[in-house]
């Protein structure tokens, strides 16, 4: 019994010692403290206007826990603070559910709605109801072709085909001959458009490869297998930032020299650009999509302004390379790029 107690005491002493050491020997880089410092630097601020506290609701087709939509939200929230807006957010990947969420916001009588049209046909009715209720709608991210037809004020986002074309041109510039386009979501119209756009402008040969985006090991093994079976592939294009790193790993283990490029940006992609493991990234600047959507709705309510003259307002593509990587890494860390 006594021995057990001493044992407990010894463990306790070790714990206290470890705790003391770790408190005294703080990491001078990274961690929560660095994050807090960054947050303090990007001060949330106060409303810059004294317009009424309007409520804007945003409904996206995002799945749960998607980093891309965190950035969109962070842009929207920053604009909402500045414009004295109460900002609401909801999302559902299933088209019917997304439409029902828009219905809920209409029932709540919000003052403006921001919505994505990833599955345009499903959202048509919801937008018509918003119009009937006199609620202005701005579409973001996807649906540039349908936005106007469905009665939205304007569309803010990237034209997927144009973004794809930019990738094809960049690949030409880099003298690539054979590329793989990695589609991580079967059934996503925007993804198909990206690869088709790239195919259109790319002088070399480009093939599509479908992988299961929800299953990373599957993504890696599929790319690996393809690169092993065809050594002449000299570039891999992924359609989402999280898959770029996986593609790099796959190229490594397949012993392939293919350069990886990606659509969209995150902290890891910025780091990859910096150390040269990634060739380039095509950013559609999600922060802008959220920020502009709220700001333009505010402008419409306040001043009846509409940007773009009925044409979509493009937030991309911006091709980013090693040159901007250091700055982008910093911005990606604070969640705005």
């Amino acid at each position, binding site marked *: 019994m006594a021995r057990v107690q001493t044992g407990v005491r010894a463990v306790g002493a070790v714990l206290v010692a470890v705790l003391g050491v770790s408190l005294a020997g703080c990491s001078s880089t990274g961690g929560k403290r660095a994050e807090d410092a960054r947050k303090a630097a990007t001060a949330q601020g106060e409303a810059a206007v004294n317009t009424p506290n309007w409520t804007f609701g945003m409904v996206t087709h995002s799945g749960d826990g998607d980093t891309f939509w965190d950035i969109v939200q962070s842009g929207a929230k920053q604009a909402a603070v500045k414009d004295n807006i109460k900002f609401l957010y909801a999302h559902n990947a299933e088209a019917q559910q997304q439409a029902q*969420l828009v219905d809920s916001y209409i*029932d709540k*009588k919000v003052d403006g709605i921001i919505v994505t049209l990833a599955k345009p*046909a499903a959202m048509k*009715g919801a937008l018509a109801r918003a119009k009937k209720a006199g609620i202005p709608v701005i579409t973001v991210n996807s649906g540039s072709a349908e936005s106007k037809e469905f009665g939205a004020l304007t569309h803010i986002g990237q034209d997927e085909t144009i973004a794809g074309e930019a990738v094809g041109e960049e690949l030409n510039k880099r003298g690539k001959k054979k590329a793989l386009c990695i589609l991580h979501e079967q*059934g*996503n119209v925007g993804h198909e458009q990206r690869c088709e756009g790239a195919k259109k402008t790319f002088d070399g040969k480009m093939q599509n490869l479908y992988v299961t985006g929800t299953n990373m090991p599957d993504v890696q093994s599929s790319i690996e297998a393809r690169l092993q079976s065809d050594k002449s592939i000299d570039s891999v294009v992924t359609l989402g930032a999280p898959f770029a790193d996986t593609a790099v790993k796959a190229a490594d283990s397949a012993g392939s020299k293919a350069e990886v490029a990606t659509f969209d940006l995150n902290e890891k992609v910025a780091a990859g650009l910096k150390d040269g493991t990634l060739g380039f990234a095509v950013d559609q600047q999600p922060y802008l999509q959220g920020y502009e959507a709220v700001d333009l709705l505010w402008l419409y309510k306040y001043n009846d302004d509409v940007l773009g003259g009925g044409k979509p307002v493009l937030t991309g593509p911006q091709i980013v390379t090693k040159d901007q990587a250091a700055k982008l890494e910093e911005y990606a860390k604070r969640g705005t790029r």
Partner: protein
Amino acid sequence: MTATAPAPAPSPDTKTDERLLKASPLKKLMGRPELGSVVGAIAVFVFFTVTADSFLQATSLATVLYAASTLGIMAVPVALLMIGGEFDLSAGVMVTTSALISSMFSYQMTANVWVGVLVSLLVTLAIGVFNGVMLTRTDPPSFIITLGTFLMLTGMNLGFTKLISGTVSTKSIADMEGFTSAKDVFASTITIGGVDFKITILWWLGLIAVATWILLRTRVGNWIFAVGGGEDAARAVGVPVAATKIGLYMGVAFGAWISGQHLLFSYDVVQSGEGVGNELIYIIAAVIGGCLITGGYGSAVGAAVGALIFGMVSKGIVFAEWNPDWFKFFLGVMLLLATLLNHWVRKRAEATK
């Protein structure tokens, strides 16, 4: 129970066979499988009425009912299947399959939209028959059989759509003959007192009525309970087990057909990748509604109330302006509470018998 002879008033000193005791209406009510879910639904309703300002207005309730009905149309036949002791994991994607068949057949054949709708009904029912026959003719449990169907349908939805349309969604059939009348049947809106109600609510109520009638008033209903309660015993007393199960799978297929047509006619085009994961929601709704996972117990009304709870929670969270990051958590808490309440009420009801 004989309805003609009035039951003798049970006095303490007359010893009657306890099986012939006439239960009081209150006790009978307490013994109903859906009672727990009804109490749960009322609790959820009161909760959101208090916490979300705009929850109680008519338009919001119409939205909640719509959400519940799109779920309930499937939850009711799925509940019947569960009472019969089986699962159907292919129910979610079958909805998408049904919509895809209808849309693509009409478009490719340039046929009247109604032709596509009927072809879709036949094919969807055939999928149900396939599930049922596979189950009754082979040994593996329905979980495995319908998991196979689920995977095959998911793949075929994407594969066939890409093969036929060249893209991942179907082409619009909105300008084709018969579209307007089909839309009236499957996806129209009924305005009552300035509030728009979706027609799916009527389909849902209709299905509840039919399913309840089958369960409680017909011989088939007895078969369903018997098959779910004890398959071998049911077979021994002459219940057509295989036919009953195939019929139940056809019922689920019929629900999938209605849901699929609703999707198609409210959105003109169908996305081939949708529907995955919904099968679990149907099962959850049925379980909340008092269906036993092991079969033999449950009701159609209960499943409908389960769907209503689900609709209220999923939309109530939006009305209450909660952070959507916590959505699934709130949903889980609500569902757990509803189920526990349900369980507790049932236990008490059984104890007082």
